[in-house]
């Protein structure tokens, strides 16, 4: 057998072997929406949170957000958080992806799954791109959801009105009003979680006042935490001492750590 024949045989076996062993490297389409691995993360973790902290007086949660394409920084956060012992759960404020690619959702999910704490994620505007909204719903769950930790209700909302062309109600007042009346015996204070704060270009600012006013009808509306702006902000948007906190993006290696007690709360901007 000549050299060319040998090279040819090597080439054909290389092609065939890579074909057989390539399942991990088959890219059908960047927006294929072929979800492998864990789904419905929010609802599973909410069950963990509600069970574990039902009788806890003090709740401490870490808030991270805007981790799109900051994989290393997100992974470092996970290591950092896992080394602490004083966090109850983690909330991600949206923008897990930059381009809405299916793989971006899965890469971020796989990093977050290494957290030893339960976590939930709200949807960010980038997570809507192309068919990202569908992928978010499959991997994480509904765009509007709530949970109760201790005696505090966390109302988590999609506020990215600009992404939906105002064709669906964002924020969804029927959801908010229903939450107000649901499980009232189990909570007596409220925290709002969203990606884009009122006054943001993403927010439907025509209803910003009504949005805030409606949330204030909840028992003891303590504060709101948002992402999107990629910098720390502490703003009394509506002039009534209910603060809207904005968390820096994870690329800045910072997160907000909130400690919530009965009728009170404190926070710390932690660098890691």
């Amino acid at each position, binding site marked *: 057998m000549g050299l*060319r*024949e040998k*090279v*040819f045989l090597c*080439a*054909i076996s*290389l*092609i065939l072997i*890579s*074909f057989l062993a*390539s399942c*991990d*490297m*088959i*890219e*059908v*389409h*960047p*927006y*294929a*929406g*072929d*979800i492998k691995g864990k789904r419905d993360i929010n609802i599973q973790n909410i069950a963990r949170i509600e069970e574990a902290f039902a009788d806890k007086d003090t709740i401490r949660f870490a808030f991270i957000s805007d981790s799109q*394409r*900051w*994989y*290393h920084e997100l*992974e470092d956060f996970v290591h950092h958080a896992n080394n602490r012992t004083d966090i109850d759960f983690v909330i991600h404020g949206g923008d897990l992806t*930059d*381009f*809405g*690619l299916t*793989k*971006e959702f899965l*890469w971020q999910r796989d990093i977050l799954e290494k957290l030893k704490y339960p976590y939930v994620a709200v949807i960010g505007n980038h997570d809507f*791109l*192309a*068919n990202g909204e*569908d*992928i978010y719903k*499959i991997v994480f769950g509904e765009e509007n959801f709530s949970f109760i930790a201790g005696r505090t209700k966390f109302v988590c909302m999609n506020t990215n009105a*600009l992404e939906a*062309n105002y064709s669906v109600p964002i924020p969804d007042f029927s959801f908010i009003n229903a939450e107000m009346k649901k499980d009232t015996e189990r909570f007596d204070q409220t925290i709002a979680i969203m990606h884009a704060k009122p006054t943001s*270009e993403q927010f439907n600012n025509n209803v910003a006042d009504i949005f805030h006013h409606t949330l204030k009808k909840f028992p003891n509306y303590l504060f709101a935490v948002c992402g999107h702006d990629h910098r720390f902000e502490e703003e009394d948007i509506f002039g009534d001492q209910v603060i809207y906190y904005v968390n820096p993006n994870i690329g800045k290696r910072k997160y907000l750590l909130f400690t919530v007690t009965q009728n009170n709360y404190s926070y710390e901007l932690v660098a890691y």
Partner: protein
Amino acid sequence: MNWSLIRKSILIGALVVGMAWQSGFAATYALGEERRPDSVSTKEAEDLPAARVEIVPAHYNMQHAGAIGLVALGPGWDYGQKRQWTTDFLIGYVPAYDTDRAKVTLTLRQIYTPWKLPVGDKLLYEPLRTGAYVSTTLGKQFWFSAPEKYPRNYYTFSPKVRLNIFLGQSVGLRFDPKRSRFDSIKLYADLHSSDLYIISRIQNKYLQFKDYLGLSFGIKLQLKRR
């Protein structure tokens, strides 16, 4: 004139020119032959077909993966002195998977194949095939440039158009010219990545090879040159 419209026209223009390029050549030669049959000597006329680029494709591809679909099909044309340049057109099908609808892609691919090494009488080896392809995904949710509702430069990429680069090899089997309509059948494998994955990798070292590189496989049916 609106910037998005300019970008759209450039893309459509490139697609059309790419397709028409081949047929244009063929048409010119064909017309030339018809109009002035006397001015071309017999010798020259015999040589003409070899230099001609034809409308009839030189080959057909069937491909698996490559970020353009589970299966993509389409014709291609070879040109250049050693036929080292190839332009392929592919229509791809992406099943719905976990989303609510299947997708269709259109791809224009340019390949450079510098070496074609015969192995014995029957076999053929191309140690390198490399190039780039532009693919678009049909559907409203995949916009070309961000809709006007967004502030300027809000999203600076297009979910619709992907630029991919690739590197691969192919092995082929020649058919008996007397018995087959086809010249050869080739099997190829390409390693590819797209603009968005490359950007993600460059700006964050977390991603591994298997994350941002993909493998695609294809069968290429080469027609007989007339």
